[in-house]
């Protein structure tokens, strides 16, 4: 779009856009096309407003790290995901996801203890054990086996549940409630039901841990409540965020990541045959770059005028940073549509960037490194049990992935 057309509202494309069903790993072709033309352009969202869509890698990184860009969804002009998020904006307690500056730092530091690099390194043997148990069960069970329900979901769920101090017996309850609220166009009612179920569960758990603390993340939050630093509701909200972010995203990345490896057997062989932790680590970064899981964009609003990429984002205008096209920006990653485990993917934006970058990223990295490598080693003949075009993709979820992945060996 040229500048002369920016005033013509009919030229503004609707967002989010659909992927091409024939290229399910690729971002929507229309988004890629916009990204080739300019690093940022206007789009129209569900409520008729026209925020900026960021598709360029460098502009995305700069705006993620810019203090003039806010995540406070109560501000005028904030581009909400859907009606549910708008309708609950004043009911939801502030959290690490919706606060800026010092308030955000305060929340974030309460959550960071279990996710430091060294703590996560210390969890590797436990993650390995959980992974091996799941693969043992797969090998002992019938074929075809569904990688999503047998591996992708149980590994991160068990790890995050133990870390938080949530009993594993409750994991079905969590998956159900987490999924209801995250659907692409969740109605206000759907979202509320899921969120309330989880919130009430977490409130009860925080109360339990206030009386009987243990060595886990919810007990850490309960201690902050006892110290008068946060309310029970805030603690429950922070715990809910960790739980949802801790299982659903990683599970999706495992499911679709296994599929991407099966479709790129020469790349899978490189990973299977490598004993080099640096290569394995970079392979996971490249898989994250290639797949970007979080679709529909990170939502922000400008609090001052920002000159960037040849445009001016005015104070009060919405900003949507779309990770997938930024990770497929050919100026940052030549031939972005190629999964190339040898390329340096260190600056990939799958975890976001800036002060809101994923709290659990080191845990996710450890899980993904262990799961992909172990699976390829232990089941080297792994192959898809259905035609590729019959794999059901999560086009309608905020986190992209596959609903199921039947494999055989």
């Amino acid at each position, binding site marked *: 779009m040229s500048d002369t057309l920016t005033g013509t509202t009919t030229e503004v494309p609707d967002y989010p856009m659909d992927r091409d069903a024939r290229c399910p790993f690729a971002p929507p072709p229309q988004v890629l096309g916009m990204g080739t033309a300019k690093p940022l352009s206007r789009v129209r969202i569900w409520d008729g407003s026209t925020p900026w869509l960021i598709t360029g890698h460098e502009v995305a990184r700069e705006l993620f790290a810019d203090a003039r860009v806010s995540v406070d969804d109560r501000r005028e002009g904030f581009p909400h995901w859907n009606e549910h998020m708008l309708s609950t904006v004043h009911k939801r307690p502030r959290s690490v996801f919706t606060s800026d500056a010092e308030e955000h730092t305060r929340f974030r530091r309460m959550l*960071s203890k279990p996710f*430091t*690099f*060294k703590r*996560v390194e210390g969890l590797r043997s436990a993650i390995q054990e959980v992974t091996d148990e799941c693969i043992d069960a797969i090998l002992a069970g019938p074929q075809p086996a569904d990688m999503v329900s047998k591996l992708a979901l149980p590994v991160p769920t068990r790890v995050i549940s133990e870390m938080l101090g949530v009993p594993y017996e409750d994991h079905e309850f969590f998956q159900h409630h987490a999924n209801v609220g995250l659907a692409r166009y969740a109605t206000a009612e759907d979202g509320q039901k899921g969120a309330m179920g989880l919130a009430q569960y977490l409130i009860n758990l925080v109360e339990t841990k206030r009386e009987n603390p243990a060595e886990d993340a919810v007990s850490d939050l309960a201690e902050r409540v006892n110290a008068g630093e946060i309310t029970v509701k805030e603690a429950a909200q922070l715990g809910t965020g960790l739980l949802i972010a801790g299982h659903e995203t990683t599970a999706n990345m495992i499911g679709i990541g296994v599929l991407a490896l099966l479709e790129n057997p020469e790349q899978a062989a490189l990973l299977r045959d490598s004993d080099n932790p640096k290569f394995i680590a970079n392979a996971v970064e490249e898989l994250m770059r290639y797949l970007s899981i979080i679709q529909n964009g990170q939502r922000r609003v400008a609090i001052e005028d920002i000159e960037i990429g040849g445009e001016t984002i005015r104070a009060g205008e919405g900003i949507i940073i779309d990770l997938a096209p930024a990770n497929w920006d050919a100026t940052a990653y030549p031939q972005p549509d190629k999964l190339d485990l040898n390329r340096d993917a260190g600056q990939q934006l799958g975890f*976001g960037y800036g002060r809101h970058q994923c709290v659990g990223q080191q845990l996710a990295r450890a899980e993904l490194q262990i799961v992909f490598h172990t699976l390829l080693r232990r089941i080297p003949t792994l192959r898809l049990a259905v035609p590729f075009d019959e794999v059901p993709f999560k086009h309608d979820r905020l986190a992209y992935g596959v609903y199921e992945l039947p494999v055989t060996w």
Partner: protein
Amino acid sequence: MKVTVDQAKCVSSGQCVLNAGEVFDQRDDDGVVILLTDNPPPAQAANARKAAAACPALAIDIEE
């Protein structure tokens, strides 16, 4: 090379320790950056630069 860190900006991502564990550590309680050496030897300089580039909070400053 002179390395400085801004603990007030730090968001505990762990990117510094991932990239340069000899130069940076994290506080056990909240993951905030700890600078182990402000003048890393040449062998660690490249990793320190990588850590500064990866830091999502722009909390690491390097003077060459």
